[in-house]
């Protein structure tokens, strides 16, 4: 296992110490494993809390700061945090205007956040992100997984909260983002969970796993490696089939899964942009980089979000976090 770590059991704690050392603007609660805005709670502002299993960095801790999340809870690698963490985070960011929980749709995350909301003793609204078109038959499953849209949603909803909007409106923005966004991913290698010490799945040379989640779950199907242009087709086609993206612009997001270098993500973005152009979908904004990862998995995901003027202006609003920062 080629990893820059100490004890596999201590990876999350060590990384949180690194985050604390690198980002003095943020407050890190090492016992509860929270990363909180240094100036939280912000009086009168809706507090934004997210969190989930670790291993997806910069998500979520890297998105804590003005204009985005107020707090992030870090679970063990690929394991939902427990309600105590979420309750502590909720209290830490409650500025009197209520708290929004941003929850990726995995059974464990959903239920733990639900319990936290019940225990929180403040007004909490939860929004569940479920954008992964790779999950078919979502009526007969735990539903679509929350993946790439989470990043865009945290940014956009953070901007809405920053404007001082009330909780119901902030939650409505979040839901609107979720409804208008779709994602699909591909893995060229498995990831290796540190505690396990070996790859989660075997991927023979020359093959890739299409429709993966962000925890090394198997995908829709295994297919031969293909040129970037074809991979882009395999990712974008099911997204466009699922939702009508024509008319109006999109935020196009090509995400790296952790071990794929930026040069390849730009090669992919070029192909995605070409497909969108042919499909009559205008790219209004772009995001390219590793923002929601799966440890050391090689691969990428594509996320498209229908973006009207309101969403674009929220996207463009200032943000100041370790991983997304502009205008501030």
């Amino acid at each position, binding site marked *: 296992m080629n990893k820059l770590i100490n004890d596999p059991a201590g990876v999350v704690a060590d990384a949180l110490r690194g985050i604390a050392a690198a980002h003095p603007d943020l407050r890190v609660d090492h016992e509860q494993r929270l990363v909180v805005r240094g100036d939280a709670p912000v009086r009168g502002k809706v507090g934004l809390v997210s969190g989930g299993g670790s291993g997806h960095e910069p998500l979520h801790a890297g998105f804590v700061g003005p204009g985005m999340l107020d707090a992030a809870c870090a*679970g*063990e690698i*690929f*394991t*939902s*945090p*427990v*309600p*105590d963490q979420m309750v502590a985070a909720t209290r830490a960011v409650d500025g009197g205007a209520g708290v929004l929980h941003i929850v990726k749709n*995995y*059974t*464990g995350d959903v*239920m*733990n956040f*639900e*319990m936290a909301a019940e225990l929180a003793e403040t007004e909490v609204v939860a929004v569940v992100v479920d954008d992964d078109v790779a*999950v*078919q*038959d979502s009526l*007969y*499953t*735990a539903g679509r*997984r929350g993946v790439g849209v989470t990043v865009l949603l945290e940014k956009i909803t953070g901007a809405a909260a920053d404007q001082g909007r009330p909780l119901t409106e902030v939650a409505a923005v979040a839901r609107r983002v979720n409804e208008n966004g779709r994602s699909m991913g591909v893995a060229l290698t498995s990831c290796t969970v540190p505690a*396990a010490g070996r790859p989660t799945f075997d991927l023979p040379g020359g093959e890739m796993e299409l429709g993966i*989640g962000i*925890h090394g*779950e*198997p995908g829709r199907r295994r297919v031969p490696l293909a040129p970037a242009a074809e991979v882009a087709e395999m990712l974008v086609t099911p997204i466009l089939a699922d939702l009508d993206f024509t008319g109006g612009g999109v935020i196009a997001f090509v995400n790296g899964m952790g071990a794929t270098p930026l040069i390849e993500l730009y090669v992919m973005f070029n192909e995605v942009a070409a497909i969108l152009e042919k499909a009559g979908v205008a790219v209004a904004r772009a995001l390219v980089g590793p923002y929601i990862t799966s440890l050391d998995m090689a691969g990428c995901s594509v996320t498209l979000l229908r973006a009207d003027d309101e969403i674009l202006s929220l996207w463009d609003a200032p943000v100041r976090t370790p991983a997304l920062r502009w205008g501030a």
Partner: protein
Amino acid sequence: MGGPELAAWLREFARLVAANKDLLTALDAAIGDADHGTNLDRGMQAVVKVLDAEEFDTPAAVLKRTGMTLVSTVGGASGPLYGTAFLRMSTALGEEQSVDAPAFAKALRAALDGVVARGKAAPGDKTMVDALQPAVDALDAQLAAGQFLAGALQEAVRAAEQGRAATAPLVARKGRASYLGERSAGHEDPGAASVTLLLAAAATALPGEA
């Protein structure tokens, strides 16, 4: 029976989970993420520590602390589910100092209702509900038919075991296993297996004539 008997039940459950930890994890490896045994063992070890360290005023208090401890230490899907189950049992018992067989059965049904409310699984979705529901039904039926708790619990264990075995051919519709679709068939559900241990612990540890 009272708090000490319930505590004995929980200790026995903890023992069974520890003994079957690898088995539970192996079941989860086949159709989930290979952590159910680890998760539940971590939680029940924490519960045993709490039982060792604290005093409880009522039987309900024992179950409440158990539920809270599981919620705080397990995470994943099974943490909230097991936690809710014990918290609902605790609420069902109220402030009574003594728990008789019908009260226990009522509490166990409350646990089932809590799991269903929390996880929204229907029978046949290939979850712990598929073992818990038949067990609760069997317990009620046996007690209604005049059985003592010991015999009724033995029937409940049998019902849980059958329910657990019956999950094998099912295609999962809830939890992580559901992403596998057809590939989830052919394996028993790990949560159904751990719930069967919970019933087995009750049959072993609870006083037979309560």
